[in-house]
């Protein structure tokens, strides 16, 4: 598996990926966004999200945390242009979001690798869809795979990969066309705790180097605190922002960061906000 070449590999991955990303684009403003699902047959309509506002600066790592039904995924999909808010708007780099755009990459909880494409071809999917020249991106895709510890697997098919390897492939896929914003919808939620932690550390190293804007949805508070500059804590009925929490942990963060006092203080502050007794 990939564990052995973990930290060294990702460090150099960081360098490789850094070279290709240059712009300071990727600022997000969410302005009073609401989402109402119309009812059927006269029942009350469902207010999924009500009047949510926050902003994410270019290069910032922000997590959305909250219980099921708080609308955190709805917010992510609104930023991605995959769903239209019923009220308010989302603005990216000064332009309101009306449809999905190339500069925004999305990673889902399930890897969604295509069984008829091998690992390399799966990573190149955005390149194919964007009508870019495959040859121009081949090296970058290979580099990403190599540094994600999947160098030996580029010709393997998704059926042959473990869950963690599948999500690594999906991570390479979202990065291959160099988006300025990466939206992640509980990407490691289906993985076991060990794999999840390893991938979190790798993700941070990559982010440290590329400084892409990341919006990360999770229901794992520890994961959110460890990864993020800010954690936006959301509540239910209706989905709304409870508090925008700064994470006072210095970067770069390592596993050791999780032993530090600010980590625990932030974690318990968020637990209190969400009404989790301890």
């Amino acid at each position, binding site marked *: 598996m990939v564990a052995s070449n973990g930290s060294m590999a990702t460090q150099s991955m960081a360098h490789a990926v850094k070279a290709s990303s240059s712009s300071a684009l990727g600022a997000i403003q969410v302005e009073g966004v609401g989402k109402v699902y119309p009812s059927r047959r006269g029942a009350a309509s469902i207010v999924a999200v009500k009047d949510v506002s926050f902003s994410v600066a270019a290069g910032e790592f922000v997590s959305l945390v909250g219980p099921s039904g708080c609308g955190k995924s709805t917010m992510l999909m609104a930023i991605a242009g995959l769903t239209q808010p019923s009220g308010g708007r989302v603005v990216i780099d000064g332009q309101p979001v009306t449809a*999905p755009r190339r500069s925004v990459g999305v990673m889902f909880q399930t890897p969604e690798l295509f069984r008829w494409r091998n690992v390399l071809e799966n990573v190149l*999917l955005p390149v194919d869809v964007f009508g870019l020249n495959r040859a121009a991106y081949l090296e970058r895709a290979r580099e990403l795979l190599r540094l994600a510890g999947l160098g030996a697997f580029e010709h393997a098919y998704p059926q042959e990969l473990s869950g963690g390897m599948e999500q690594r492939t999906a991570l390479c896929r979202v990065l291959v066309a160099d988006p300025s914003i990466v939206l992640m919808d509980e990407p490691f939620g289906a993985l076991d705790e060990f794999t999840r932690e390893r991938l979190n550390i790798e993700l941070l190293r990559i982010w440290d180097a590329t400084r892409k804007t990341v919006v990360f949805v999770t229901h794992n508070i520890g994961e959110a605190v460890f990864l993020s500059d800010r954690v936006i804590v959301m509540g239910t009925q209706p989905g709304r922002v409870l508090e925008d929490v700064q994470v006072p942990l210095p970067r770069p963060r390592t596993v050791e960061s999780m032993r530090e006092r600010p980590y625990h203080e932030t974690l318990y502050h968020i637990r209190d906000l969400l009404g989790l007794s301890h």
Partner: protein
Amino acid sequence: MAGVSAVDPTVESSIEGQANARAPGTVPGSNDDKPGLDPLQRRWVEPIVSLGVLITFLLAWTLSSQLRLISPLVLPPPASIATEIMDVVRAPWFLGDLVATTTETIVGYLLAAVVAIFLGVVLSTFRRLRRIVYPYVVVFQVIPSVALAPVLIIWLGPGISSKIGLAFTISFFVVLVNTIEGLERVPANSLRLMTSLAASRRQTFLMLSLPAALPYVFAGLRTSATLALIGALVGEFITSTAGLGRRLVEFSFAMKADSVWALLVLIGALGMVLYGIVALIDRRVVWWRA
């Protein structure tokens, strides 16, 4: 979403279609406690026992024929069927009848496949149209298409066309329903991924929906390969100018038991060959299926 009843027919056909695709070495739960063989034993023992069962069966059959337990008018011994097969194959009429039945089957099948896949794509592209038309599709899939044989003979004549028509009718709906079903079952998150990449409808269809639906389409194509042959044979039973089905009825009424059984074996072989070809193409095209 369509009603449960509307979806059901395909579930069956896909269940049937995948029935023989059992992964070796997987032990399903209910069989946990059963005495298992290690893989090596399995590789040798099972085919040998399987073959042994067949040989024992043939011997018992021969023996009961010789002891006159079974009348040779009802079931001739295997040896005489085997000799008769050689005679039938060499008979001057055989090639013509074989070509007739095979042509009817293949032409009807291919027409059905092309039209059904095309229509399936159209119907799942225009969802509104699909909702309006689908009840009829379900009805036609459930009613026995062989009942249309006489009507088709009136329309298309006693020759080859009416059998092509019946082969077409009988195999059409399975492919249509499976195609629609396959396109319907493309994972929602995969579609969202394509949307997030701002993929065009065409790109989404070619890169995702079509390959994702292919296993279902081929499950339908496998089932309908057998059905097309049935259509051709039933058509020939009623009226025809040529074909193995007609010859079978003729021999039956002439009480030529040897020839009837020889023909049955040959028709069975034809069915196996046709199915085998489709299964082979399936494996080539949808190689990524588990």
